[in-house]
């Protein structure tokens, strides 16, 4: 069986989504468990992708193609995983903070996180602290990710954290921040859990926080 997984991982790496989808079905037909296929086929495949992305061998659009192939397999497994309650790897609320309209970086982070299998609730741009708080309540998310590209809008990241505290839900979510003028020092100062310098790092950070 490990042979099949090897082929599945290779197809995933090459972004061959119909092959990955077919292989997932075959594996199920052969009696393998959904969780087994997910862990040893798809997730293991994406780990190789992640490793090569980090070493600079793969480019973002290639990673997104791999992710698409992974999702083709995941869709087959989803109903079965849902039964066992293991369908979601985690839910993340994303938004560009209030007063800020830059969304290219945030969208990239969103695509990469979706690619890695996380569920994303994208609140868009110009998101106010109370909107983040409401979304945490309504969506039951694990993580909030805030993006800011202007030095003048960075302070509102702190306001969101304060609003989360005031709403008594700060300990229910982790907070990640990013954007060109943002630094890890700033994250520490405002009491965010983590800072991620780029979209790839955001995926790693989310993984670390959720494990």
């Amino acid at each position, binding site marked *: 069986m490990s042979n099949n997984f090897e082929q599945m991982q290779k197809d995933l790496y090459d972004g061959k989504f119909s092959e990955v989808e077919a292989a997932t079905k075959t594996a199920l037909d052969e009696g393998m468990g959904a969780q087994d296929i997910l862990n040893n086929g798809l997730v293991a495949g994406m780990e190789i992708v992640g490793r090569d992305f980090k070493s600079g061998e793969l*480019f*973002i659009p290639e990673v997104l193609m791999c992710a698409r192939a992974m999702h083709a397999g995941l869709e087959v497994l989803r109903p079965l995983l849902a039964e066992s309650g293991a369908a979601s790897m985690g839910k993340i609320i994303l938004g560009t903070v209030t007063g800020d309209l830059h969304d*290219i970086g945030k969208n990239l982070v969103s695509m990469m996180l979706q690619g890695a299998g996380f569920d994303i609730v994208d609140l868009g741009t110009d998101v106010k602290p109370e909107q983040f708080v409401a979304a945490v309540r309504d969506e039951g998310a694990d993580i909030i990710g805030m993006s800011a590209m202007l030095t*003048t809008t960075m302070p509102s990241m702190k306001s969101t954290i304060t609003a989360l505290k005031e709403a008594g839900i700060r300990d229910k979510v982790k907070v990640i921040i990013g954007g060109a003028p943002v630094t890890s020092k700033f994250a520490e100062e405002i009491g965010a859990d983590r800072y991620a310098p*780029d979209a*790839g790092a955001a995926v790693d950070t989310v993984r670390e926080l959720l494990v």
Partner: protein
Amino acid sequence: MKTLKPYLKYLSDAQIEEINEGSMSLLENTGIMVDHQEGLEFLEKHGAKVDYQTKRARIPRKLVTRALETVPDRFTLAARNPEKDCPLIPGGRPYSRNGGGADFTIDLETGEFRPLLHADVKEYYKLMDALEGISFIAPVFGQDMPVIGRDILMLREAFGNTDKPIHLRAFTGESLKLMFEMAAIVAGGKKELKERPIVSLLEAPISPLKFLDVTVDALWLCGEYGIPLDVCVMPIAGGTGPMTMAGNLQLLNTEFLAGVVISQLANPGAPLQYAARPMAMDMRTGFSMAGSVELGMMASAGAQMARFYNVPVSLHGPWSDSMSHDGQSILERTYMNTMAALSGANVLVGAGMMQQSLVISQEQLVIDDEINRIAFRAVEGFEINEEHLAAEVIDRVGPGGNFVADMHTYKFLRSERFETKLLYHNSRESWEEGGSTTLVDRAKEKALIIIKEHQPNPLPEDLGKELDEFVSKALKSLEK
């Protein structure tokens, strides 16, 4: 007679036509998104097909053609001191400005990376006022300045510390109007400002093909006040624009034409520049790159499109992703700037700027002053006539002689060459005697001297007072 303008050409005439055709049909069939109710109604009134639900305006070719007819082919970025005017003329000499919007710096004394502060802003203006290779000045921001009205305060600083043309950055539509009013005070009235616009503005649609409400308002306000506008089109290849250079250029050109339509149909003859600022996404990290040879190539082709439409063109010049004023910075800037200048740019943008346009440094400004003046020299070409060809002189000196003491040498000694004080061409011995300085050391020294000694031409006292009164009222009105 001068040599030819040494303009780079990537596009053939047929390719230029093809890109133009492509843009016309994209505007007609795909259209643009205009997040501005009045703007949509305005476009519909002029013959665009508008879908109010999706805010999509499809613009027929004849509208674009009509808008293009009224775009002026030249205008002047006026200065408080007319000697420092920058006339932008297709085929004319290039001018340059610093990169705008930075609010971090590398400390001139300690070399440490830190936020830019209000106190630095004055020094920056002083320095840029003194540097000849920086023709006009864009704002840098102090992080300790109040957020609301920061743009207005920086303009006040600019008027007090330079008599060169000033390039604006506005945070809101409201503050933009207030800044135009400030410019009118300094210019001596709204009419005088229109005749001699001492400020200019940059506005950018959001790639792909989207115009925000603030952008439309700004385009119209510029037209109303006669303020020169950079229609800044900056799709990021592989991100907000196609991966291919041709595709990114196609999109960029389409967005420029859309800007022309919105501007010219409302205010025919409003001065604008084709600010072709193609970017590219770093496919390993997602960052948008400032330095990359393809940017220079796309921008160069953009300059050809601008010449095709007969409008002045502004390109990224000294531009780099580097974290400091190091070798990478100088390498990227030099080729970007040289390519842009040789492509016929009227304005070379970027002096001083690095790290995703967040950081500006004084050493870098001094170095870029030099890089700019070298580029100015390169496009100037050289004189060719009997006296300059010097056959008679060659004959006079004859085989085996030399030209050092010839009258001809004496005559042209100072007019033929670019004079540098920053680049070193002397012996190792005297270099060591002078402290074995690097280019950056010498740039730092020059910056320190300028900041200490340079006295900008002050605003007349009564004007200064009037401005101050206006600014304090303006700030109060913004706080409400």
